[in-house]
């Protein structure tokens, strides 16, 4: 394979890449100008559809398709840029905004033109302090140059853009949670329908797209749909930013065509360059925490939108890989993951609110050395009751919690069992008794047989 020429990261490392002058000198805003002056919104949407660009936020929904759901007769359209990058292990949006803020702004212009956007909001997570100032400076610069506001490029197009900072909640990365938060409410995902395309921000048609999705747009129109389709695999086209963290030699953000394998990402010379200090890989969470875990034997999984599902994972997610080294205690890993979801569940739906907390308590007890073999079955059960069946909750957070926890327990079950067998049974008993003497002492009754309840007599 020839060395991949970076697309999204082409300005990375260029001096002054944050400034409009440098960005323009490297061909910036030409695509946007061409699109706005020469194309119609419909042809833009058609081109994006043809390019096969899929949303980079995690679910991989085709971007052009999402835009075509907007009602044709509408006066106001809001465009939300999801920069609430809070998936653990992911930092590609941060890299993009830090190094090339104008690329994002150009993407917003193109997408805004295609969706007839009146106001665009960049919803940025609160922890992005520096990135916020970088983006704000770039936006001010763009406004001054007439790229936002009224009469953009001398045409009739006008569009406003604001940066909104969140208040630090994982669930606000979910599109309806983001919308609620943007409206100034508690970041609770909304019930759907109505979908945001019909009723989103302030009850108006709204599109929510990820930063990286928008950053792809200028390149699609600069180099053409066919070029874009030539990158990646058949159903997952285009370049993708992969991030890698954990004890690898070069933990960083890399750009590659969609469809590289997880092994490439960890060991490839262009990427992670292998493990640090002679460690071995125990497992790898390939795409942000929520997708689930791959074992060492499964590292040949292709990181595109489809192949990951063959390995029991939720999806590609955000392609932020977390490498678990062989010297990590899997119990600690599990407890840490469970802690994250327990603290980030918004508390709206019962299953997620109670289930994530329960799993955390169990995982913590296992990590402390007081686990039981039956706890592993119980955790699997909870994940099944909570997120594996679609429709049980309003948003996808419980699915996101269920997948990593379930795959870890399933794929590393032997290791868990070894740990549990080796622990001191007396200690386990003491802990259990102390936690809840009543429950511990009670005989375990059988589950109630199924009966038809709830129907009219």
């Amino acid at each position: 394979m020839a060395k991949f020429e970076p697309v999204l990261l082409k300005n990375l490392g260029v001096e002054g890449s944050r400034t409009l002058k440098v960005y323009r000198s490297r061909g910036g805003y030409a695509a946007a100008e061409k699109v706005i002056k020469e194309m119609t919104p419909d042809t833009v949407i058609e081109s994006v559809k043809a390019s096969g660009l899929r949303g980079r936020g995690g679910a991989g929904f085709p971007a052009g398709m999402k835009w075509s759901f907007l009602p044709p007769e509408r006066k106001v359209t809001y465009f939300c840029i999801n920069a609430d990058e809070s998936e653990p292990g992911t930092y590609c949006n941060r890299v993009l905004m830090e190094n090339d803020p104008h690329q994002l702004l150009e993407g917003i212009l193109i997408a805004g033109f295609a969706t007839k956007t009146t106001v665009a909001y960049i919803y940025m997570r609160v922890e992005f302090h520096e990135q916020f100032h970088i983006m704000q400076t770039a936006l001010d610069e763009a406004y001054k140059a007439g790229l936002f506001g009224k009469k953009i490029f001398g045409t009739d197009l006008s569009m406003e853009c604001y940066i909104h900072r969140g208040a630090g909640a994982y669930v606000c990365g979910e599109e309806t949670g983001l919308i609620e938060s943007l409206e100034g409410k508690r970041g609770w995902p909304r019930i759907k329908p109505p979908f945001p395309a019909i009723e989103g921000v302030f009850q108006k048609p709204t599109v929510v797209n990820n930063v990286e999705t928008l950053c792809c747009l200028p390149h699609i129109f600069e180099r053409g749909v066919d070029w874009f389709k030539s990158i990646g695999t058949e159903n997952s086209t285009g370049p993708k930013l992969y991030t890698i963290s954990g004890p690898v030699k070069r933990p960083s953000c890399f750009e590659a065509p969609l469809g590289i394998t997880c092994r490439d990402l960890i060991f490839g010379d262009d990427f992670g360059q292998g493990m640090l200090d002679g460690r071995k890989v125990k497992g790898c969470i390939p795409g942000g925490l929520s997708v689930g875990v791959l074992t060492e034997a499964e590292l040949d999984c292709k990181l595109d939108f489809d192949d990951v599902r063959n390995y029991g994972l939720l999806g590609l997610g955000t392609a932020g890989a977390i490498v678990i080294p062989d010297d990590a205690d899997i119990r600690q890993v599990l407890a840490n993951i469970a802690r994250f979801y327990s603290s980030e569940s918004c508390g709206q739906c019962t299953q997620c609110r109670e289930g994530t907390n329960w799993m955390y308590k169990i995982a913590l007890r296992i990590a402390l050395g007081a686990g039981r073999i039956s706890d592993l079955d119980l955790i699997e059960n909870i994940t099944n009751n909570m997120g594996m069946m679609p429709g049980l909750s309003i948003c996808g957070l419980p699915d996101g919690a269920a997948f990593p926890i379930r795959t870890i327990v399933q794929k590393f079950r032997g290791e868990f069992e070894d740990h549990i067998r080796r622990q001191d049974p007396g200690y386990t008993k003491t802990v259990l008794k102390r936690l809840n003497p009543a429950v511990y002492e009670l005989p375990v009754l059988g589950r109630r047989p199924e009966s038809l309840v709830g129907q009219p007599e």
Partner: protein
Amino acid sequence: MAKIIVDGREIECRERIPVLYAALEAGWDIPHYCYHPGLDVVASCRLCLMEMKMPHPKTKEMDWSPKLLPSCQTPVKDGMEVRFNSDRVRDNRRDCMEYYLLNHPLDCPVCDQAGECWLQDYSRKFGEATSQMVEAKNVNPKKDVGSKTLLYQDRCVMCSRCVRFCDEIAGTGELGIVNRGSKSEIDVFPGVPLENELQGNVVDICPVGALLDKDFLMDQRVWFLKSSDSVCPGCSTGCAIHVDHNRDQVWRLKPRFNPGVNDWWMCDEGRFGWKYIHDERRLDRLVVRRGAEIEYPDWSALDEIARIRFGTVVKDDGEEKVAGVLSPFMACEEAWLLARFIREIAPKATLVMGPVPTEGEDKLFPQNNGDSAKFTIRSEKCPNRRGIEMILKNAGGPSVSFEDFVKKAGQSEFAAAWVVGGYPGEWVTKEFASSLAKVKMVFAQDLFSSPLTEAAEVVIPSCSWAERSGCFVNHEGKIQPFEAAIAPLEGCQRDGNYLFALSGESGLYNASRVRAMMAEVMPEFGKLHVPPSLPKHAH
């Protein structure tokens, strides 16, 4: 009307209501916490999930959806087919009930809600006997959220009904949810306690024992309470209520569903305004004064006493010297019987409506958010002004306003008067008392002693509305019946009983019988406003 198929059985239901409510109305017991027909749908309790038949995305064949759908959020559509009796739905309910009880303290023995708790009911019906959790429970102490309400946070199921009530109906928005995940809890902002005038409703709509009424706290186990359908006498809105009582003691009032009048709600003024029923200062015996002499005759003698004494006045002073003051706290039946009696003895007697208490202006809710009114507390603090007006109009003949009556009485234009009170507070003004002193003979029918009863020749202890039955006509003319909840105070008689005897009828007073008699002359009383009852399993 739409036809839908639920669990293979076709039911008919109104268009566009949630499937959940359609099924509840048809008799299904679908567990639900967050759904309340009077509030926005949030679909967060995830108990009412169902399966629906949908076209398969590829083959377009109708099949059960792979997703479970919240039935509270899915509107009824003609021809739709749903089911609640599948394994997936049952499993989800079972798991949900287990989740609800994970951090619940299981303190039913000391919880006021026990017996009317939907967590108990649903656990028993849809849940499991045991929990699989061995971990320590999250502990969350109780909180004092307002002057009338306590919040036991660890019993809460986070249905957010109370929060939505404060936002949407009261419009004051005191309650909110703080924190996230399993640590989330209902709370008020510091320094802004729950102090709206509808706050009692949050206790009613709380499906579990999280929000409790301080007034009723640890008073009675609810299974001892008996409930009577009644109408609140607090203002002219005429909220339908339940009077919950045990052993002739009223313990609490709860709103009764009455669409268009009070819907599901009632105000705190009415809810806690019943305490005068059990006031120790209430009059409790029939008193007859002959000069300085005081007698306490038996109730059976009242008929004769009234007829002889009024007869004497009519003979001595003339028919037009007799007056009857009807209180807007009387039931229509009682007022009609009394008016009939007075007009029978003295056809030219003057009939007067007692003072109509008013207080400030009508209070509309929601208060702050500019929505159209969903609940109103009326300024007219009596239940039956319109009813008495109807009776007076029907009775015809001389009738004056209360002010004129007081004036005329002061000028000694009346020799005998039957004055009915029944007001929960003091109502006899100095002016009224001094002008009544000029009336030779006064029959006072009232709850509490006052200058009126002290000067009266005959004092008849009246009963509160909870001890009587009849009907009130509310501000918009709805004739609403109420039944007697408790036995009258020892020594008292139901007002209807002696008025019935006085007007020459035999047998016992029965409100519906009197109404049938009234309907012959006033056809309006043939048609009562009786609100529909809620579906059995709705709450």
